[in-house]
């Protein structure tokens, strides 16, 4: 990495990228009010200005164009956003960034790899859509100086971390599916529950380690509560599977918006989310949080494996997944085992939520929903209802999501995983580790 070789001189680059490459989940962020000029005009150019990821407020931009009677200027808002209305579409405009309005310490440095080559002026065309996005990124631009190999290694490590985290959530989803047949859409909310509980426990002054343990315990209680209040009575009524699935969708909506009601639409951080990265080699770096997250995931999965393979109740769980009526006929108390599965699945999901809060990073009311489909993809990929399938599927999905950004725009990275899901179903509907069913 070129930049790292001279860290004393902080190199600031200005790069303006048409059709910006989205950052982590920026695509999910709700739109914020931008500083607006000529907002009454029908078409618009808008975007953000940021320095190393931090939004820059008060930066002056001006827009000129043949169709405009006078240049329009705008100051970016505190979150770096701006919008200028323009009178015509299918027309060209020039955007000029006023260097003198940049905060002290920021300056413009040429970036040969981006649209903007030698100046802070950018030409844009407002197309038939009538709107165009134009983002100015200032700061160190690492991607131009990182070798493909380094990027690949970094993505693989990230993907493994993400996959392990996903596995914790997906295993619970798969176990619940295996023992009860429910495609539990509310599993996403169990993930969010773990993260929010830890935030609340930290908020009331508990040390981090205690808060995390507490959050997992609360998650387990949450799972137990959901089972005894909702799912167990439905089981006793012999409710159909489709019905159960739709109940879980309703539950998911209700719980998700309840979270929003209480914590609002903002992103909150757990302590330690901004720990510095450790340089490994090349541009590959890891934070302590990443390392701890992977170690914890692996140990938890190991404990879970022991539980499932060696303990009595674990064996009973597998028996029920295999054939519920046979298990019941052999004297296994299905109801009790299913309750334990809800508790274990929920605790795993809650813990995964904490890791997810560090990985994203940040806690939001809909954070679980963001990975729900990936969980389903993982579970389906591995074969519905098998714990090991969910583990394998999750790691594949994690690696796929992360490495795909090397080839496709990062705001499409989930698309890759979801397309693979559909393709796998085409060729091996029972998943990697599942087995076929008999007709008749």
């Amino acid at each position: 990495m070129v930049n790292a070789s001279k860290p004393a001189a902080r190199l600031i680059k200005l790069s303006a990228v048409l059709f910006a490459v989205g950052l982590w989940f920026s695509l999910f962020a709700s739109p914020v009010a931008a500083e607006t000029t000529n907002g009454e005009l029908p078409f618009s150019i808008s975007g953000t200005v940021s320095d190393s990821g931090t939004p820059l407020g008060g930066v002056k931009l001006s827009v000129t164009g043949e169709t405009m009677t006078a240049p329009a200027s705008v100051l970016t808002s505190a979150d770096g956003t701006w919008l200028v209305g323009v009178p015509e579409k299918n027309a060209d405009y020039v955007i000029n960034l006023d260097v003198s309005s940049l905060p002290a310490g920021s300056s413009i440095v040429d970036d040969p790899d981006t649209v903007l080559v030698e100046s802070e002026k950018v030409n844009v065309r407002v197309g038939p859509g009538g709107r165009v996005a134009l983002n100015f990124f200032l700061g160190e631009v690492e991607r131009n100086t990182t070798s493909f190999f380094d990027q690949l290694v970094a993505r693989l490590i990230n993907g493994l971390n993400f996959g392990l985290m996903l596995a914790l959530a997906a295993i619970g989803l798969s176990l619940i599916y295996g023992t009860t047949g429910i495609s539990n859409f509310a599993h996403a909310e169990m993930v969010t529950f773990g993260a929010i509980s830890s935030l609340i426990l930290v908020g009331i002054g508990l040390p981090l380690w205690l808060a995390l343990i507490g959050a997992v315990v609360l998650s387990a209680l949450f799972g137990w509560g959901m089972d005894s209040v909702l799912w167990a009575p439905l089981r006793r009524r012999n409710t159909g599977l489709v019905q159960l699935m739709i109940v879980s969708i309703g539950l998911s909506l209700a719980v998700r918006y309840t979270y929003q009601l209480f914590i609002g639409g903002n992103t909150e951080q757990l302590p330690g989310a901004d720990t510095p990265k450790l340089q490994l080699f090349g541009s590959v770096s890891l934070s302590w949080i990443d390392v701890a997250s992977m170690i914890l995931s692996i140990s938890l999965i190991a404990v879970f494996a022991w539980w499932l393979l060696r303990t009595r109740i674990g064996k009973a769980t597998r028996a029920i997944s295999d054939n519920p009526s046979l298990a019941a006929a052999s004297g296994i108390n299905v109801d009790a085992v299913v309750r334990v599965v809800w508790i274990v699945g929920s605790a795993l999901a809650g813990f995964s939520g904490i890791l997810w809060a560090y990985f994203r990073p940040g806690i939001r009311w809909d954070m679980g929903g963001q990975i729900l489909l990936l969980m389903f993809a993982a579970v389906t990929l591995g074969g519905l209802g098998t714990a090991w399938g969910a583990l394998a599927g999750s790691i594949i999905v994690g690696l796929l999501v992360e490495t795909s950004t090397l080839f496709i725009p990062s705001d499409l990275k989930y698309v890759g995983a979801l397309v693979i899901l559909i393709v796998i179903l085409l060729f091996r509907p029972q998943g990697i580790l599942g087995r076929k069913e008999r007709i008749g």
Partner: protein
Amino acid sequence: MDFLGVLNSTIGFVLDPVTFAFSLAALGLALHFGFAGLLNMGMAAFMALGAYGYAIGILTFGLPWYLAALLGPLAAVIFAIILGVPTLRLRGDYLAIVTIAAAEIMRLLFLTTTFGPVTGSADGLSGHNSATFWAANPIAEGQYDFGPFRGTELDWWVRLVGFGILCVAVVVVWLLVNSPWGRVLKGIREDEDALRSLGKNVFAFKMQALIIGGILGSLGGLVLAMGQNVNPNQYVTSITFYIWTALLLGGAATVFGPLAGSIIFWTIQAFIGLLMPALASEGLLFGLSSIQAAQIKFILVGLALVLIVVFRPQGIFGNKKELTFVK
């Protein structure tokens, strides 16, 4: 608090293009789920195709609005085929997961900056109506108010076209489900192996149902796009769930159930959406802010879905015996 005002605005929602749009989508879903037993969890994507097909047809290809309106249904047919080929041979819950995944793929494709010049990315598309569909409005300029139903000539034009499309769709679906074709569909819902053993090409029937329901969904998106801007945030997974709620509220295996369900769902939602903030601003909601109060409606939607499915699975208009949840 202006309770009468809230009530008036609520009743106005009965004739809102949005209500028509969701009725169309719910009708499509009724064909999918209520009659064919297909668990389509990706209705939002069909709607998005209808809306984007229309807007892109006008803005990018410069088509007349009535031709652009056909692009969405065409895209829906192709999308249904792509979805159906791998999944219609599989168990129902796979279809649910694949359709929800495919809908998310579509949304991300409309949202990505990669195709920004065509789709407008996160900003969506606007300005597709003003010189085209709205300009074709035969109603004389002015404000037309009939009791709680108010609007300019433009509002009524959109309502009229939306209502027209809905009426045609209802007739078509009614004919379909009351024909031998509809009977085969219901048979497939009950047990597709049995139908196979009777010599019915189950795959073809399911595909036809998926396509027709998908077209209805895309028409819903079209009606939405005729009245307002097109934005990717309108076609999130929650929208699919709302359509499901409306459908189950009315009764899945009926033709008029989805319509009634949609009207009831959207008016109640509008009512709560208007009432809660009004209550909050009067300080009657334990200090909740107006924004928080508006969110309560989503919680209530979720709870409603749970309660309907548990206590009245056949919906308001469904036959008590013809419970739709058999599997």
